[in-house]
């Protein structure tokens, strides 16, 4: 998909710049082969975008490139900042399909550490509230290494939601969740979109498009295809 991408950030009525994600001719090469080729994409404030496509299509690669975890050619701007800069990193939170947690910190300490590292003190309370909603409240003083994959995923999602970043990048977030947690996450994502934030996630579930009121972007063979929703 190719479209013109204006670079100026738009602002809300109170003067706060609205979040915006812009990708221009983004190419990621692994071993001489382009896994993503010339991707142009613009995500506006208040949108939830679902990346959909077969395994190996490049969905996770796209998310990782936006998070600055992979080298790429082209331009990625997160609310006007490049992903590897301090401003860029502060603009998003990323939860991988296998979430990265600090094994030396308990789940509660994750909330304390990340809220301070992101200089968002109020995020600690919000994260603890998300732990409760994900039914993790009685396990927050344990190390994540003792938790199941689903519980680790819930903890990582609670941390990301608690930080309330402009952009939330989620790689297949619904895969390991139980039914209640899926509903909790969907509710959280809907609320974020209403608040004018951006959600970008990869998923295979057809029903999510309707549940989240999401736009769908098809990814096939490293190319971003049609957009609907």
């Amino acid at each position: 998909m190719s479209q013109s991408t204006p670079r100026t950030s738009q602002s809300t009525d109170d003067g706060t710049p609205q979040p915006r994600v812009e990708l221009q001719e983004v190419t990621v090469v692994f071993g001489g082969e382009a896994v993503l080729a010339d991707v142009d994409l613009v995500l506006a404030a208040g949108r939830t975008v679902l990346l959909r496509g077969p395994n190996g299509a490049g969905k996770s690669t796209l998310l990782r490139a936006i998070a600055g975890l992979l080298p790429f050619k082209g331009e990625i701007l997160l609310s006007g900042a490049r992903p590897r800069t301090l401003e860029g990193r502060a603009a998003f939170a990323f939860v991988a399909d296998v979430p990265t947690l600090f094994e030396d910190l308990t789940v509660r300490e994750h909330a304390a550490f990340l809220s301070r590292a992101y200089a968002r003190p109020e995020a600690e309370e919000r994260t603890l509230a998300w732990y409760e909603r994900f039914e993790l409240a009685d396990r927050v003083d344990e190390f994540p290494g003792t938790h199941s994959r689903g519980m680790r995923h819930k903890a990582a999602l609670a941390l990301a939601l608690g930080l309330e970043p402009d952009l939330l990048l989620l790689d297949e977030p619904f895969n390991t969740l139980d039914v209640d947690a899926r509903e909790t996450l969907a509710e959280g994502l809907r609320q974020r979109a209403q608040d004018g934030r951006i959600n970008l996630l990869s998923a295979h579930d057809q029903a999510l498009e309707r549940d989240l009121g999401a736009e769908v972007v098809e990814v096939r063979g490293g190319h971003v295809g049609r957009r609907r929703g």
Partner: protein
Amino acid sequence: MWAGDVASATAAGAVTPGASLAALERRMLRRRVGRGYRWVGQTFGWSTIIYLVFWIALFVVGGVQSAAPIEHPLPAAILPVALDALALLALVSVSLQRSPPVVLGRSHAMLLGLSPWSARRVLRPRLLGFFVSRVVVGAVVGTAAWLLVTILFAVSVPALVALGAGLWLLRAALAMLVYERRPIALPLALLASLLAALGAAAGVLGFGPGAAAPVLAAGVASALGVLAAAAAFAYQGAGYPAGYLFDAMVVAEFRTSVLMAVMTQSAGALRRRGVTTRTRRRGKGRRSGSARLRLKPPSTEYGPLGAVAWRSALSLLRAPLLMKVALLAALGYVYAMLSAGVVGGLPLAVLGLAAGFLASWLLGPSVEPAPVPLDPFSRGGGRVLPGLIVAAALFALFAVVRSATGGPTGSGEAGLLGFALVALATVILEKASSWLHVSHREWTAWGLSGLLSGTLMWVLSALGGPGMITLGALGLAFGSLLVLP
């Protein structure tokens, strides 16, 4: 034979798992000795072996008797450096080992799989043989070193025989720790920390570097050994290295069989007081995985720097007790060497390597690969700060103790110098591990930072005295934190 052994055990009125196992072990040992005896006899012939042993012994005794110092012996100052370097090499090589230290036979798997005995009990003869053989090898190496030192340095240090044996024993214990957490290795590691403390004490009491060489060499060997042991403990949490995958599976099988045995016992099939007591004690404990040591998070005013420093302090607080003892011993060793007068030259570079190893434990954990928005100063400062506060406090303590025990003047100077060395190594390690994207516990990272910090101190020593070195090193460390990304 099996039936006969059991019958004899029964006759002795001791039909217990332990007695049956001992009978089985005796049978296996007899069979192995018999097989070995026959193989040697058929392959070489026993008369040939006796003939060769006689002549080798004669040559060795003749060689020892004719050993005389060379005309111009080497300076004694090189001796501690050489001994330290050799001890370091012997211990560091453990981390490069890719094969299990003890090869288990099919019989062990059978014994463990089919019996309720603990793995430790079944493997005891094999482990005993392993450790005894290493002590013998170490003693031989120590004897050779004694002779070599006598010839090259014109000083006789018989303690090198015991040092060699101890070092090889420690090396074996560390290899076992890396391979599998064995209870037998723990007391050995604790013994090593005691030796390290002795090494430090030798320095504190004012021995010169030449006179205290064997003790100090034992000190560095032991301190680094215990640190490596602590590293092995931490490493186990992350899983086995790829080279040990097959053995890990075998050990996992062993553990399963042992677990089954414990379950059988706790279910009442074999009531034993020990098991029930242990089970009850575990039941009273908290849920596994809970944090036992906590530290209140800092005020949000301190921002990202405070957050990273808090996490680093937590990491130090939760470090295994063994590691804390090792840190104390290693810092003591660095202080002892510096207060014994090792300020410039090659010894300082070797000391830098020890400081690099020390830094790998003082430095806080990295946030990678999580894309957290941390500026380089918050990241670096937060990671090094708690460790350096601990190091500064310990060096000050050593200086006070040394002054109180009537040590020579300059106790504080040695402490400052030690702190500067450790600070420089820690900052360089932080930068190196961040840039190279490797764990700061990787020997490549701490080795590099240790060598670099030691070399920098060496260069600084050429420019001036201890005051100049301290100022220069602290300036370099702080400047790097402020300026480098």
